[in-house]
């Protein structure tokens, strides 16, 4: 696979969504870990849109100013909390993100960063949850593909609340290193694509690959 010769710095947008921030442990630790990294914007969707009245234009403008979009949230019912879905429904308009002329996101990167209640071994064809995390995140994978984006391997903190404070801190730290690596151009995102992900044509055109 051809790759860009130089790794570029990326402007990273974290779209964080947790409906009950007061009760959050894992997500809070993850958000805290990102504080102070240059080139990283964190937006708390539930705080910005407590009435779910998401403003598409604002969000689109912000998207355009970033290269890597991270959906960071607790894993709820094998998916994302409601506002993430609402955000996708409202912001990724036809003719803007997809469909005829919808190329505004092409060439950008999408990643999911989640914490789960279930242990890693549950997420397995033979495990209690019967599917792998990657299987369950297929809608995000395909969303990225349709929009001409590169979909990166998800960052997962399993059994987040069962972890000791120390373990959680370690997980949060590796999350920070990953994001900071992307932001500073130290980590090559194309080496972090989700398993088996083929870059869509829109992405390749944008990067002249």
């Amino acid at each position, binding site marked *: 696979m051809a790759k860009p010769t130089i790794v570029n710095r990326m402007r990273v947008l974290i779209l964080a969504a947790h409906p009950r*921030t007061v*009760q959050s*442990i894992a997500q809070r630790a993850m958000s805290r870990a990102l504080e102070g990294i240059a080139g990283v914007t964190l937006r708390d969707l*539930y705080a910005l849109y*407590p009435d779910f009245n998401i403003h598409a234009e604002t969000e689109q403008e912000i998207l355009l100013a970033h290269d890597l979009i991270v959906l960071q949230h607790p894993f709820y019912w094998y998916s994302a909390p409601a506002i993430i879905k609402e955000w996708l429904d409202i912001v990724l308009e036809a003719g803007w993100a997809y469909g005829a002329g919808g190329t505004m996101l092409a060439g950008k990167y999408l990643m999911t960063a989640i914490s789960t209640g279930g242990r890693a071994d549950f997420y397995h064809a033979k495990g209690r949850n019967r599917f792998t995390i990657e299987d369950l995140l297929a809608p995000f994978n395909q969303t990225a593909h349709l929009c001409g984006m590169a979909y990166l391997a998800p960052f997962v903190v399993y059994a987040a*609340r069962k972890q000791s404070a120390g373990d959680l801190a370690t997980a949060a730290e590796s999350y920070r290193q990953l994001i900071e690596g992307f932001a500073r151009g130290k980590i090559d995102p194309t080496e972090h694509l989700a398993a088996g992900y083929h870059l869509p044509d829109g992405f390749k055109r944008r990067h002249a690959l």
Partner: protein
Amino acid sequence: MSLNDFLLGSLLYLAAAVISAPIAKRLGLGSVLGFLAAGAIIGPSVLGLVGNEGEAVKHFAEFGVIVMLFLVGLELEPSKLWQLRQKIFGLGLLQVAGTALVVGAASLVISSGWRESLAIGLILALSSTAIVLQTMEEKGTLKTPVGQSVFSVLLFQDISVIPMLALLPLLAVASAHGGDDHSASLIAGYPVWAQALFTIGAVGLVLVAGRYLMRPLFRIVADTGTREIFVAFALLIVVGITLLMGLVGLSAALGTFLAGVVLADSEYRHELEMDLQPFKGLLLAIFFIAVGAGIDFSLIASGPMLLGLSLTAFILLKLATHFGLARLFGLNGPDTSRFSFALAQGSEFGFVLITFCAGLGLLTGDMPGLLTAVIALSMAAAPLLMMLDEKVLQPRFADGDFLRDHDAVSHSGADVIIAGHGRFGMTIGRVLNAQGKRTVVLDLDSSQVDTLRRFGFKVFYGDALRLDLLEAAGAKEATVMVIAIDDREKATELVKIARHNFPHLKLLVRVFDRSHAYDLIREGVDNVYREVFGSSMDLAKDALMALGVHPYEAQRTITRFRALDEKLLRTSAAHANDESKLIDLAKQSRAEIARVFAADKGGGQTPPDVAWHDDDKSTP
């Protein structure tokens, strides 16, 4: 006057004020009338408790009028004054000229000739700034459009006194060296052009000093942090301007008014207002009492017929002229009436002009006495006349009895009828219009209707309680009726009418408080909206957020609280008359709210994830 005399006089005036004001208020008469009556009672004609010093007291208390105009000026920024220019110089000029001609012409019947009549006309054209402004301020009507018209006229009258003082001597050519020293200012000896220069200079001085000198001075004075000094400085300014204007023969009221305008956008405005307010109130009270005391009952007794006729004729002529003018200037029915009645009396400045003209030989024989009595009595009648307008005529306007007819309401298949387009209904209308819904709006406040029309809203003047009007508005075809009238009884009444005649209409009703909501819920209305409930919820939410609560949490809290409170409202409605039951329900509701929020918070505990991460044996 010895100190004791002074104190005794003060005692009498203050006692009269303190006793009369509450009584007049209780009787619903307004304080001005109370003061006038109290003055008449303690005056020489009745009890004789105060005597000849009344004149001196009046002059002293006229200072209250000056302070009042300063305060009026403070509330009127230059830009607003500029907006009033047409009213001041159009309506004001026509009022003075028109009334002077009409009243003057009528006075030919009793005067010695056209010169005397013209003088009479000019004297009587003026209205009492003190009475009118005080009364309107008490009623809160000064800021309304008609209040502004009245004010503009009063302002022009004040201005017009200056040329009057200059021109009346010319009228008195007969008495070649007329003019006592009422106009005698220090500059009287100079040629006219120099006088004009002095006058312009004085006004300019007030304006420039107000703009550039007073503010820094105020800052210095305010920095002392001594309130008394600040008050003293404020009074110093007013007194200073009064004297300066006196020097050049200008109206002091006008001068202080201008100073007030100049200071209107300064940061000290509110402090000035607060500090001068008591002086104004007290001085005006004394002024009104002095006017009351000055009413010469013996004169009334000696020629009751002539006086009675003159007084009636004067008031009627003035009313008629004002009616005509108001119509000419496009005021609507109710406002025409308000305007005309407000200004239908003589002015305190008339007394000064009478003495002035008598000195010129323009007024002869019994005329000065008669005019003085007419003015004084018309001033006494003024509050009564305004009350007549307010209590008798205005309600009939509101009932649509005369002058302003209900508008011919047209609708092209409206979706919504909005009854009441005040602050509440207007917002609703705007939202509905934004969604392209067709609204028909009915409102009973005619000036509001006119204003809104100018802003392009489709608003009709009319009483929504009238069945024919509702039908004309399309009640049969409409889907929804919004009842947003700010009158509790009328709202309830309209609900009954609508439910009875247009049962298909979905009613959404603004209510005032819980008990009003109970009434309507029992009337069968589901959609009741407590008028300030929504905004208090909004504020509560922002308060939570200001305390660091996450916005989404705050939003949910408010939504749930609201739902629980609405539920309480509805269950309580059935027991509206049973207080102990209501208390019971309120307590239950509070417990429920506590329970819901506790559960929601997980008792402050972070809910465990056990079910997600432990092997669950019960899972099939």
